[in-house]
């Protein structure tokens, strides 16, 4: 603990202690985010005072601390609820923690301060059973309404084999069916207004334009959307729970499947967090390879967005052209990684293997090929007057609204805010590269599309720089926790061979620590908040995905528009349900 004392406390801590009194307790985390313990009674007041400085509520979730061993210097707690806030002006984060006893797991809701807290608190309730008092609709959000227990508590089984076999009898079936009955009032919608009876339309969970299993209950007046209530959770696979059952190394493939269009981009925040906790310095070549592969997947994801967006406003052809381009892209990705959509290729301490011979020609060919295609798509799609009429002024929101609701990524930049983590908080060597941050002004469906198309061009620029300046050197760090260690070395000395044996059989042991890393993923800011209790597995894996808050905003931006506009709005958000439900 001697090392800890040398690390100065961030200045903001002293400032907050002055404002809120000495009860506030500071906790050190390796990610450098000031973490403060606040008492439950103070919480709403603290949040209200913090909001002007930290306008974005980035994340809320909880930690089941009951079996955690290494909690030195932290107040006693059975369930800890944490809040992650972001200040744009100071470019700073703040983490607020509140300790709760198991016998009294109640905490005031902060929905009165941030309406965006609604879904996050529902999720924390669903997963941990923490009760948020004064919450407007504290129902389960990811698990089915009749689910027993709270999945992320340590006493909830993680695997089906730990439970009795599931049997569906008539009684359960009837209860489940009854639970599914649609009662508009329960969804906060009235059946009639003064002059009209509303129609309720169940859009999804299986509908061609909801991009996965996503359901929206629509209250319609003719074809005009009066209210839209999103219902998520159909794609929930318990990715965070799986993190507690997989070794640090074997969890990497699961991250690929969070934003399943993002491929290795998903590995990046996870391995970066583990590396920070283990103290691994990644070699330059590995960093550059990571950037290049991540940008390839950004292009791939944006191309798919572009195609499906055009398709959702009724243009049939673009998606086929873009799939042709993606196919070329996947050929390169396959040549480099061996996989296509889910290569699970990043490793703790580097990447799986070195770039193959001839990779540069393939990449160069693609860089020369795509820009002309993009110009062609501009002519075909973005300048089309019908498409413009369908999308300009539809689903508009301002920068202030975006920040209020936790919108990040292209959706934020379309409002004129140039916040891109690659520029503002460069990670993995992005500060070495030249690129622009495309923004637009209106924050409508059309602008969100334009921003993404320009991002494809910027990604091409980044990849060309990676291609021209790829450093030489190892593709993995020389560090005992690098998993698996460099192959050449395991063949030469017994130390590395033992290390290899331990790391792939038992798994690397990460020292007790907490770390949150965030990246600019394809759809917005993706962060992994990992807590190690000094074991071979994560104690708590919190995955904050961009699509989750984006969907929460749907009612706000779709009211008063037509059903057809709603489809365009959904397309412009660019979400995948795996990224929402995890």
């Amino acid at each position: 603990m001697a090392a800890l004392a040398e690390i100065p406390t961030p200045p903001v801590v002293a400032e907050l202690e002055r404002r809120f009194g000495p009860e506030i307790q500071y906790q050190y985390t390796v990610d450098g985010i000031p973490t403060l313990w606040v008492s439950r009674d103070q919480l709403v007041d603290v949040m209200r005072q913090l909001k002007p400085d930290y306008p974005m509520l980035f994340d809320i979730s909880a930690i089941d601390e009951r079996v955690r061993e290494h909690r030195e210097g932290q107040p006693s707690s059975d369930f800890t609820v944490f809040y992650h806030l972001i200040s744009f002006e100071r470019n700073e984060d703040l983490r607020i923690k509140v300790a709760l006893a198991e016998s009294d797991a109640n905490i005031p809701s902060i929905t009165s301060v941030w309406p965006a807290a609604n879904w996050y608190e529902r999720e924390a309730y669903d997963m941990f059973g923490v009760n948020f008092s004064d919450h407007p609709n504290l129902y389960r959000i990811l698990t089915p309404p009749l689910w027993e227990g709270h999945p992320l508590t340590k006493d909830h089984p993680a695997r089906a084999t730990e439970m009795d076999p599931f049997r569906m009898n008539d009684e359960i079936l009837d209860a489940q069916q009854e639970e599914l009955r649609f009662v508009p009032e329960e969804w906060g919608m009235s059946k009639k207004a003064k002059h009209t009876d509303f129609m309720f339309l169940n859009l999804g969970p299986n509908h061609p334009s909801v991009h996965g299993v996503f359901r929206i209950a629509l209250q319609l007046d003719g074809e005009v959307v009066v209210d839209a209530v999103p219902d998520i959770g159909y794609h929930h696979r318990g990715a965070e729970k799986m993190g507690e059952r997989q070794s640090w190394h074997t969890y990497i493939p699961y991250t690929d499947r969070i934003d399943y269009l993002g491929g290795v981009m998903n590995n990046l925040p996870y391995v970066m967090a583990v590396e920070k906790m283990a103290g691994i310095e990644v070699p330059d070549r590995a960093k550059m390879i990571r950037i290049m592969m991540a940008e390839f997947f950004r292009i791939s994801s944006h191309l798919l967005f572009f195609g499906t967006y055009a398709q959702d406003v009724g243009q049939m052809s673009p998606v086929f052209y873009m799939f042709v381009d993606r196919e070329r892209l996947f050929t390169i990705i396959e040549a480099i990684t061996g996989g296509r959509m889910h290569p699970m290729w990043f490793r703790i301490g580097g990447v799986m293997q070195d770039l193959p011979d001839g990779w540069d020609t393939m990449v160069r060919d693609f860089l020369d090929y795509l820009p002309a295609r993009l110009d062609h798509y501009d002519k075909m799609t973005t300048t089309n007057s019908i498409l413009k009429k369908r999308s300009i002024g539809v689903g508009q929101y301002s920068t202030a609204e975006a920040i209020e609701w936790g919108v990040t990524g292209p959706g934020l930049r379309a409002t004129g805010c140039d916040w891109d983590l690659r520029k503002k908080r460069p990670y993995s060597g992005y500060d070495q590269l030249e690129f622009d941050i495309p923004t637009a002004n209106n924050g409508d469906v059309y602008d969100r599309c334009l921003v993404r198309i320009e991002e494809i061009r910027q990604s091409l620029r980044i990849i060309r720089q990676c291609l021209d300046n790829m450093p030489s050197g190892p593709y993995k760090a020389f560090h005992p926790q690098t998993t698996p260690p460099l192959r050449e070395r395991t063949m030469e000395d017994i130390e590395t061979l033992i290390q290899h044996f331990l790391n792939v059989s038992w798994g690397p042991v990460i020292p007790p620590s907490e770390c949150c890393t965030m990246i600019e993923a394809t759809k917005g800011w993706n962060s992994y908040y990992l807590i190690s209790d000094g074991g071979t597995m994560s104690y708590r894996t919190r995955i904050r995905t961009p699509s989750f808050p984006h969907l929460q905003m749907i009612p706000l931006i779709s009211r008063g528009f037509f059903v057809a506009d709603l489809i365009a709005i959904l397309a412009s958000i660019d979400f995948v349900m795996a990224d929402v439900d995890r």
Partner: protein
Amino acid sequence: MDYGWIMIVPVLGGALAGAAMLIWWERRLLGFWQDRLGPNRVGPFGLLQIVADIVKLFTKDDWVPPFADRVVFILAPTAIMAGMLMAFAVVPFGPGLHVIDLNIGLLFFLAMISLAVYGVLLGGLSSNNKYSLLGGLRSAAQMVTYEVFMGLSIMGVVLLTGSFNMSEIVRAQEDVWFVVPQILGFFVFLLAGIAESHRLPFDLPEAEHELAGGFHTEYSGMKFGLIMVGEYLGVILVSAMITTLFFGGWLAPGFLPPISILGPELEGVFWFSLKTTFFVCFFVLLRAGIPRPRYDQLMSLGWKILLPITLINLLATGAIALFIAEGG
């Protein structure tokens, strides 16, 4: 020469075979334009894909939803098919080559194509499904709007010919095709024709991305097959009508010598088919290229732009016709 009732066999067979072929042709053509292959596995060039599709449609479970209005639900696809096929009766495929040479041929065509739209509307309403209902409502609105100036847009042609008879309309174009004096009428009729056959970009009653199939969401098996074939019949019919009304029907372009080996009738069929095929391909190209406007945008396009254009066109044509008649 009038072949009369014998013509029913080739017209019926030709229209149905054409519609079936079109299913394959459209998919191949779209594939060609969209950087992909399209159906090319069954038979030469994938031609037998049609047979495979028909076998599939016939063997599918022909399900009538228990919540639907059974009689109307079954009647609706029949109405679509029947309306489209009946309209073919007045189309002149060559000199004297028509099932019936009605004096009110054009009105008959308008009446029959409206009947087909009823099928769409009733199919949507009888399915008792909210998506179908929205599709049905959209088709009703679209029908009311586009019927109006579909009728009005061809009145210029009628004024210039002085007859509703299709064969006479074609003969009146021997000097100059009506697309030249009636260019506005042609554009409006083209748009209305797309709307009538509810093809992209005017496929709002279907709108698979919004309404998941719209009026035919609940249809399966051969009933769905009828709706689909009806749609392709509509494409051929509208193309044939554009050819007849604005592009000289069976007439060869004036600067070309007659193809003597074919004889006047077969030559007429050749030119008629060639022109119709061109417009069919144009329909497919439209589908490949253009996004779908929103329902209210389609309505305002109809009422605010197309209707005034049609009326001005009609007024001007009438004035010119009157002037010529007075002067002549």
